[in-house]
């Protein structure tokens, strides 16, 4: 007895566990757990902003930004043939009212091109009170989630005040929070009662297990005689009654909802943004990671085909930003925003229009360790990647993707 109870308890616990795992994958800072080369050489996010970090239930939050599909895509990661712009939050703290990629609605899954840049905008409406670390996120089929920058966002207020109204093409205004639920529960109760009546009809025919078992063994071939004419009549009524109710409910639903469509699932292709390099090319000549100093050092051959002198202001990879404060300033947005405000410096000065120059760049920060990027040198494919930002004197910005083999220096 005790063992059976224990078994049942374990089964139920396992069941609950499965669903819990399934329903809400824990998004808490999964950003650090992915391999470094994957974070540096797949999807590179930048300019990510949220319109607010404190809001009330029913208020809207807009997240905007850009992402670049790294040109030197790792061989062992599926390419973004099918991808879906998503948001990393623990359950629907927000509802997604709209999402756009280059201005095209992101309700469908999308195909993206390697080496291209896209901008996105997601409009979210706060649904329940919570403080969450919210991420921009791209799900790529067979590659999994590619996590973008995160922000701490706090929602206050009462979930009971939340509504999610929409008007259908048949002219009805409905609240998606509760739509169709009463009807569904009503049908489940109806059939549940019939099922209970059917089971109880048998169970209340006295003790059923031992006496019936004995009788079945006693009658042998003739055991079917245990089923009385009355039993069979109940069976006929149950069968016909069930079929009649199902048929009626089916046609009644068609009468109530004459216009319905099947579930929609298409895929779209969205044209990329114009090249963000805007006439600047940059190529890594050599690169090493200095383990004791936690510094990435690389020389960059830069050619400036714009008509303004340019200077290097930022290097970003894996959602971490190394800023050169003499050219471009940025501060962390919150406690979990990895911005090294003073992390980058370089030798070589401005690159003038028409000039090709070698710049020696150093990116230093503890983030190499805390965000486990230094592990890159132990990856099977220890190549790094990232974006460098050049700023012209006229305020223009050129963004170039760079990458190449990385040699560690242990002393």
């Amino acid at each position: 007895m005790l063992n059976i109870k224990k078994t049942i308890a374990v089964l139920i616990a396992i069941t609950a566990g499965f669903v819990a795992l399934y329903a809400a994958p824990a998004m808490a800072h999964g950003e650090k757990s992915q391999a470094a080369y994957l974070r540096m050489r797949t999807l590179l996010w930048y300019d990510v902003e949220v319109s607010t970090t404190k809001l009330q239930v029913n208020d809207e939050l807009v997240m905007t930004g850009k992402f670049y599909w790294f040109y030197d895509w790792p061989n062992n990661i599926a390419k973004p043939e099918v991808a879906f712009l998503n948001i990393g939050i623990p359950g629907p703290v927000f509802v997604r009212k709209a999402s756009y990629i280059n201005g095209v609605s992101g309700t469908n899954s999308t195909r993206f091109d390697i080496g291209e840049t896209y901008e996105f905008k997601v409009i979210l409406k706060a649904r329940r009170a919570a403080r969450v670390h919210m991420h921009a996120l791209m799900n790529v089929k067979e590659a999994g989630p590619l996590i973008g920058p995160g922000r701490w966002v706090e929602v206050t207020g009462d979930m009971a005040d939340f509504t999610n109204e929409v008007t259908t093409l048949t002219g009805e205004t409905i609240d998606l929070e509760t739509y169709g639920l009463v009807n569904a529960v009503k049908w489940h109760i109806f059939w549940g009662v019939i099922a209970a009546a059917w089971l109880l009809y048998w169970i209340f025919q006295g003790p059923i297990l031992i006496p019936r078992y004995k009788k079945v063994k006693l009658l042998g071939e003739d055991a079917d005689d245990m089923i009385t004419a009355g039993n069979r009549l109940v069976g006929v009524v149950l069968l016909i009654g069930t079929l009649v109710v199902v048929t009626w409910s089916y046609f009644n639903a068609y009468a109530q909802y004459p216009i319905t469509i099947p579930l929609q699932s298409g895929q779209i292709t969205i044209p990329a943004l114009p090249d963000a390099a805007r006439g600047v090319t940059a190529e890594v000549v050599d690169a090493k990671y200095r383990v004791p100093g936690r510094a990435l050092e690389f020389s960059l051959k830069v050619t400036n085909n714009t008509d303004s002198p340019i200077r290097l202001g930022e290097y970003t990879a894996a959602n971490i930003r190394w800023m050169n404060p003499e050219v471009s300033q940025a501060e962390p947005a919150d406690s979990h925003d990895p911005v090294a405000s003073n992390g980058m410096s370089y030798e070589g000065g401005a690159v003038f229009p028409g000039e090709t120059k070698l710049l020696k760049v150093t990116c230093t920060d503890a983030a190499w360790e805390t965000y486990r990027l230094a592990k890159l040198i132990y990856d099977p494919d220890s190549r790094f990647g990232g974006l460098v930002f050049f700023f012209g004197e006229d305020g223009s910005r050129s963004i170039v993707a760079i990458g190449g083999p990385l040699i560690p220096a242990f002393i």
Partner: protein
Amino acid sequence: MSAVQSAITTAEQQHRIYKQFDWIIIPIVVLVVIGAFHIHAMLTMGDWDFWIDWKDRRWWVTVTPITLIFFPAALHYLLWENFRLPFGATLACAGLLIGEWANRVANFVHWAYFPMNMVVPSEIIPMALCLDAILLVSRSLTITGVLGCMVWGIIFYPSNWAIIAPFHVPVEYNGTMMSVADLIGYNYVRTGTPEYIRMIEEGTLRTFGEDVTPVSAFFAGFISVLFYFVWLGIGKWFAKTTWMKRI
């Protein structure tokens, strides 16, 4: 065992003990069915049963009856062959629904905050009632397997249409047409279940055009027939365990 039997002196006493046996065994069987059938269902039907925007005309209609026939078939064998009791399918399906509702309310709604209308389980009682009733009327597992399982597969979609029809009303949203179910799936962010993961409305049955649902339903019925007999066999193997003979 003989010691127990010797204590029974009157028919009334025996009746009481048999009744107690019922009240101990039946709840245990129900709980085991809820637990085991539920795990089986989640691992097979999974998302198709969880989410309103997965309940399509091809996969959901096919996968659900086929995967769910297992426990009813095994219980039919056990309860019919040994006790001439014809409620195995309803017992299994009602038990599964109790487990599903408990999980949806506790985990999907109260823990993960999805709206309940997004995660209502499929209605599977009518098909179970038909399967049981056909067994009772025909008194034959063979007829039940052939005729009953066809009915089982075919009436799954009609039984659910009364629940899901409202969710198939079209909506214009950000320039595209979606069903209400699609819109709910889009609105309520599921970080781990992106849109493309949905296996819906695809497969070779596409060529049947608008008649896809009846074709899927007949296909589901046909495969259910096959699996019913497979699982009768497995039920037979389970029923062989010696504890029955020792009573």
